[in-house]
């Protein structure tokens, strides 16, 4: 790298970082009069310290006696009713795609160690089932569930009704049609041939349309908001819903990025799907659910500010670390490595905020399914992000690149972080939309343990196997086939973990449908991991 390029990079880096810190300082110190005093306005009087915890039975119930409390309940009720149809449409579709995507993932995993499995049909070859798995779980499960939860949370956060919910419903239909067409196209062999961008660009138009139809109600709702201060969850959700359409549109522009620039845009997009789309959704939900279930505030407004704005500044350049060693300019790779490491700033601030709020309340994990799923998800966000920062460094990348280690890391992020938080959110949301409690608490336990043990086996076996594979690949004297054979136990471990996760998803989907059909008792009490002490029948 020439000194000129390095000096330009250093100046840009310093200006942007210092500028950002100044911005955060200004907001935190009320220079724009949006500071902490404004934050208090969302707090309805007398609402503190009430929660779903049965162990807190000695505390006075939140009865809604005062007019302030009554109006707070009314606001929630109005918000939930207005978003009901749209949220149910998006969430139900997401659960369907979760099941489909899991089965394709399982088939892909089996093919890695049973290469003769299902090879008689060209539609079920590895090169087609793997992208079907990836696209079904990313755009089907994660994105649709994320949009569904965002549609639920945003009216609540803005204390108003969701405006134009029917646009969101039709958006869900168009999105689903896009998924069906896109997955069929991949199965038939019509793929754009770039990871995360496999859907043919003609079909991508449907996603842009469906997503835009979702943006309309959210923008209308934001314009109608009844609060002066925006809670941190709404920053993340609104930002994600602005960022993703831009990313998706640019990356899918046909005929624009040939050759190496195509690869650069490809990984810029693919990593931004994680960092600027599902990560803000996941963090935003955790920022809402953790204090909501605990009934106590997130500890620090300043840390929220640093976490959000540093994510916004640093993330977009991170993806190029997938091309370390590739035929693209060195300065671009170096920039990406520095920004990958800088990403530990938002990760650590968010971690302090989430886990600091949990501090002293860990016993609540025994009861609340939402809290347990969401908190584990938040913890795995911390773990997978710090791991990702490490993997970007050249000395570690040389070992982990092109190995199963990367696959384990990706699932730690997309599954143990994001999917766990989405599971927790679905457990929270559904009773509020259907006015019916989850039918069987044991099914929630079963779901939790299946997916937790599944992802644990998955992650450990691929991490260990991938690291050994990476070190072996650097050994020029080791025959390639020996290395392939060496990874077989790890690949079989992955299939076992994946099968447990798929089983957990079937339990979850069954329970979801049972709730929609109003099976079970429809209790007065929330369905918790342990029978609630106040439950009259026990």
């Amino acid at each position, binding site marked *: 790298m020439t000194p000129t390029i390095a000096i330009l990079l250093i100046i840009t880096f310093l200006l942007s970082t210092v500028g950002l810190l100044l911005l955060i300082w200004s907001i935190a110190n009320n220079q724009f009069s949006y500071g902490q005093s404004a934050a208090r306005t969302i707090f309805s009087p007398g609402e503190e310290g009430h929660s779903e915890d049965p162990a807190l039975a000695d505390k006075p119930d939140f009865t*809604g006696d005062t007019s302030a409390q009554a109006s707070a309940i009314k606001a929630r009720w109005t918000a939930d009713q207005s978003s009901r149809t749209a949220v149910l449409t998006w969430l139900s579709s997401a659960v369907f795609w979760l099941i489909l995507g899991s089965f394709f993932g399982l088939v892909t995993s089996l093919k890695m160690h049973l290469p003769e499995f299902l090879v008689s049909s060209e539609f079920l070859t590895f090169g087609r089932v793997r992208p079907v798995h990836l696209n079904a779980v990313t755009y089907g499960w994660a994105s649709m569930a994320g949009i569904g939860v965002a549609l639920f949370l945003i009216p609540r956060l803005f204390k108003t009704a969701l405006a134009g919910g029917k646009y969101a419903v039709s958006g869900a239909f168009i999105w689903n049609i896009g998924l069906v067409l896109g997955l069929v196209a991949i199965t038939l062999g019509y793929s754009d041939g770039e990871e995360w961008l496999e859907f043919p660009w003609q079909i991508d138009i449907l996603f842009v349309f469906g997503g835009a139809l979702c943006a309309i109600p959210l923008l209308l709702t934001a314009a109608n908001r009844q609060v002066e201060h925006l809670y941190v969850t709404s920053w993340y959700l609104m930002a994600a819903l602005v960022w993703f359409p831009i990313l998706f549109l640019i990356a899918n522009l046909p005929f624009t990025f040939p050759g190496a620039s195509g690869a650069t845009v490809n990984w810029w997009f693919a990593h931004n799907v994680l960092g600027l789309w599902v990560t803000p959704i996941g963090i935003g939900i955790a920022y809402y659910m953790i204090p909501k279930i605990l009934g106590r505030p997130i500890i620090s407004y300043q840390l929220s500010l640093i976490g959000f704005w540093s994510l916004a500044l640093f993330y977009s350049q991170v993806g190029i670390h997938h091309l370390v060693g590739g035929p693209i300019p*060195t300065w671009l790779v170096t920039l990406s490595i520095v920004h990958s490491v800088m990403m*530990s700033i938002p990760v650590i601030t968010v971690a302090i905020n989430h886990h600091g709020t949990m501090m002293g309340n860990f016993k609540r994990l025994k009861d609340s399914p939402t809290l347990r799923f969401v908190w584990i998800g938040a913890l795995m966000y911390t773990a997978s992000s710090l791991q990702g920062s490490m993997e970007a460094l050249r000395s570690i990348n040389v070992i982990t690149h092109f190995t199963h280690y990367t696959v384990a890391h990706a699932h730690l992020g997309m599954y143990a972080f994001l999917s766990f938080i989405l599971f927790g959110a679905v457990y929270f949301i559904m009773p509020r939309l259907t*006015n019916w409690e989850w039918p069987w608490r044991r099914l929630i336990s079963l779901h939790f343990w299946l997916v937790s043990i599944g992802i644990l086996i998955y992650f450990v076996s691929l991490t260990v196997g991938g690291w050994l594979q990476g070190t072996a690949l650097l050994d020029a*004297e080791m025959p390639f086939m020996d290395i392939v054979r060496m990874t077989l136990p790890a690949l079989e471990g992955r299939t076992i973990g994946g099968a447990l996760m798929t089983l957990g998803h079937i339990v979850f989907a069954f329970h979801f449908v049972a709730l929609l059909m109003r099976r079970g008792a429809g209790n*007065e009490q929330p369905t918790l991991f342990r029978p609630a002490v106040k439950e009259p029948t026990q």
Partner: protein
Amino acid sequence: MNEHDQRAQFREAPEPEEGTRTTPKIVLAYIAILIVWGVGYYAWQIGKPLQGGDSRTPVAAEHQQSQPANVASSDTSQSTDTSAEEASSADNSSEQSATSPENSAATETAETEDTPSAAASEDSEAGSGSTASANVDGEALFSAHCSSCHQATGQGIPGAFPPLAGSKWLQADPNIPIAIVHDGLEGEIEVAGDTFQGMMPPLGGQLSDAEIAGVLSYARSAWGNDASEVSPDTVAKHKERFGSRGSWSADELTEVFGEH
């Protein structure tokens, strides 16, 4: 709207809000350290070659040097000795970033304990280290130019790339392998009882006479092969005789140089 229609909404905690705790000093210190690190990392890259790389090639080269030319002897123990191999290569890669001399010393002693011909391998290691400029390192050239197809073990890949270990073409009259490496080979060829249909690119433009001679001498004596060394002069004569020509076929080779 009665109470039962909103029981979940009724019992839940208030909408969340943010607390007023200030940013811990340690977080601010961490941000400051990272900014300094970022500037330093950019500055550290000044003058580094524009390879965009992940240091993969240097690691391979270093590995070649620290692992002496005992391939032939350790050939059989290779597959069983997997863990030792991995450990040493892990050491090599950490060396790449952290440069700890004790580490590499430990690797070497571990290796010499493993190998029965300890003295011999130390000698050849010292040799290969110092000869990088004077002589040609045939093994390193092989690893860089040939091993991706013919494999480091010289076994090739069944059905795709012919083996070099035990190949009669390689061990025949030196003019035959010189012709193949210098000008390339195309079409059907029978090696060690199997027929291969493929194409080998000409390397005459990339390798000097001495390098072609060096890599052939290495291949002709590795993996149990036992044929004479090839001198750079033979390569020069080949160039004089045929100039720059296209790829050979197996039939042409037999026709021009006789039966192998």
